């Protein structure tokens, strides 16, 4: 998933219709990096045969796929979505694409990042599993593949939950699943030779119309200066004044 780099300062467009993306540095979604790393680790343990990196987006998504190939993926699939379709691309459309691809490629495991850092939806993994009617192991902080089932340790509000689900399955990677590797230079050279297939959503029979309309995008309110008070009584009085207590 190609998103604006986490280190970049985001600016809202003057017409409040979205954020500025032109000329802004983009990179792979950090959770997707963790997902790719997990897939490559599984291949290194010889538990899976092939790792396919998929990205939906404009021409520049190919760079993101190449990074995944440099990390160790075997081949890439670029689903070309650009222009208006790309701006309205959301979890529902991506999960429809993923489901169609999973059936076409006969995948056994889909590993996604738990959420994208641009919209923070946290829906794609779950929707994909629902569309395919596959079990899901979301917020994974530990994955153990064992024959035809997967043991997943999930990070939930109350702590950690361990579940066992059958493959084929959908997993979403959480922060502590692993630390993504830096691509080694020989792998970067090899990535050049690996294939990236080009696919259009129409070929997969996916309808990209969005059911959501973005009305307005605003920056978070500016943080106002604070006030210092002398005593606890002062603090309570001020809080009561402001209607907070």
């Amino acid at each position, binding site marked *: 998933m190609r998103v604006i780099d986490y*280190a970049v300062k985001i600016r809202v467009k003057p017409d409040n219709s979205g954020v500025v993306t032109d000329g802004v540095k983009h990179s792979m979604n950090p959770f997707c990096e963790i997902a790719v790393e997990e897939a490559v680790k599984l291949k290194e343990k010889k538990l899976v045969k092939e790792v396919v990196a998929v990205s939906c987006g404009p021409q520049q998504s190919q*760079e993101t796929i*190449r*990074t995944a190939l*440099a990390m160790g993926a075997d081949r890439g699939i670029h689903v070309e979505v650009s222009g208006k379709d790309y701006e309205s691309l959301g979890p529902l459309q991506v999960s429809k694409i993923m489901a169609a691809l999973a059936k076409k490629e006969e995948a056994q495991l889909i590993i996604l990042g738990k959420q994208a850092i641009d919209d923070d939806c946290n829906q794609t993994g779950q929707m994909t599993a629902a569309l395919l009617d596959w079990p899901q192991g979301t917020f994974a902080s530990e994955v153990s593949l064992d024959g035809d089932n997967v043991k997943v340790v999930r990070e939930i509000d109350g702590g950690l939950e361990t579940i066992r689900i059958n493959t084929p399955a959908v997993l979403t990677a959480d922060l502590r699943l692993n630390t993504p590797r*830096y*691509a*080694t*230079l*020989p792998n*970067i*050279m090899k*990535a*050049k030779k690996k294939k990236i297939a080009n696919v259009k959503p129409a070929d997969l029979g996916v309808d990209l119309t969005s059911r959501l309309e973005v009305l307005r995008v605003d920056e978070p309110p500016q943080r106002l200066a604070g006030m210092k008070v002398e005593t606890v009584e002062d603090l309570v009085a001020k809080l009561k004044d402001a209607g907070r207590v």
Partner: protein
Amino acid sequence: MTNQRKESRLCTSYEIYCLRGTVNPAMRHVVYMRPLASLGVLGICKIYTSTVYNLKATHFINFHWGLSREEGTMSALCKARKVLDLCLTGCRSLTQLAELPETHQLLRQTCRDYADRELAPIAAKLDKEHVYPAKQVKELGAMGVMAMEVPEELGGAGMDCLAYSLAMEEISRGCASTGVVVSVNNSLYIGPVLKFGTEEQKKQWITPFTTGEKVGCFALSEPGNGSDAGAASTVARQEGEEWVLNGTKAWITNCWDASATVVFATTDKKLKHKGISTFLIPMPHPGLSLGKKEDKLGIRASSTANIILEDCRIPLNNMLGPRGAGFKIAMQTLDSGRIGIASQALGIAQASLDCAADYAHKRTAFGAPIGKLQAIQFKLADMAVAIESARLLTWKASLLRDGKKPFTKEAAMAKLAASEAATFCSHQAIQILGGMGYVTDMPAERHYRDARITEIYEGTSEIQRLVIAGQILKEYQS
């Protein structure tokens, strides 16, 4: 195919059309000759149009120039031919100067990400505590950065010189000390062994040094001679099946953390600089001891000290290259090392520009960010031009080396330009940051200290000038 230039055009420019079978407008280069001083509108006697067939039948070159003296014609032809040759070698590589190939872009981005995430946050601490970045060196080794130009069979990354230059720049942008560790290992230690070593020597002395677990160092300078490399007073005498070395080497980067060294010693004093030979010594080794760690102004995370050889005995086949070839090996090694150091200087310069430009946005004075003031803008522009020109020189030197063309002059130019750019930019960065530039809270003062050494080691700026002048005079020899 002739170019009909209007006769009224009164300049000494000429256009070279390089045709390879079909007209390729992209191959058109415009090269300007240094205008002849006596040229003026009234001084033109004749304007010559000539069509010259180059040695290669596929190239057609048209020269148009205005000259005030006929005798100047022939020398101009010769000069132009030489420039043309240089131009044609640059033909293929000029597009690479404008935009890097995809693999190199990906490599650059990977090294930049690594430097931003792993080196920049700890650089200040490494500098303050004089700590060798062992963990980071191992990680860089795993990525292949510690042996970038070594073929894959020997454990390296098998990449070219341009890739090495890009990686060095990005690493040094994060931490200059780590950059110098990488550079010394790649260019100064592995470099000569790769170029002059036997297959056995390569396996023994290169392969263990590709992973970042071990690093090497380069011992040429002595307390008595730095720039005067031919006067090596360290001696090596043969005793049976061994070489015995005696002497002291000074200013050796990495030596406290190294596991092997390339040492230059005199084997035949009468032959002067042709009597110097190269040896490989493992570290630690009986007879080899290290002096105290120098307390340096900058690049403090890398260790620098003397290497003292007292009856240090090594097997006969630890000699690198033929006997007496030491000076040649040293000079060729330093040629390549210059590209590495130029890249390190570029990294430091770029880091200072980043720091200064960021500050110019944030700091307000006189009611607006200081970036709005022309005085600051001029400084930033000068810094950017210095960096970009040095960078293009460095890339050109790298591309020439990759193309196995002579690159001594370009490498010296690159190192000179880049090191002077580094000192200039770091100086200006402190100026832009004002008081904040003087304290350790901001990295500007560290860049200033790190930049200074780039004008000194691996050939001082003065030596670079001598090398460049020597090459230029050779070109103009009739």
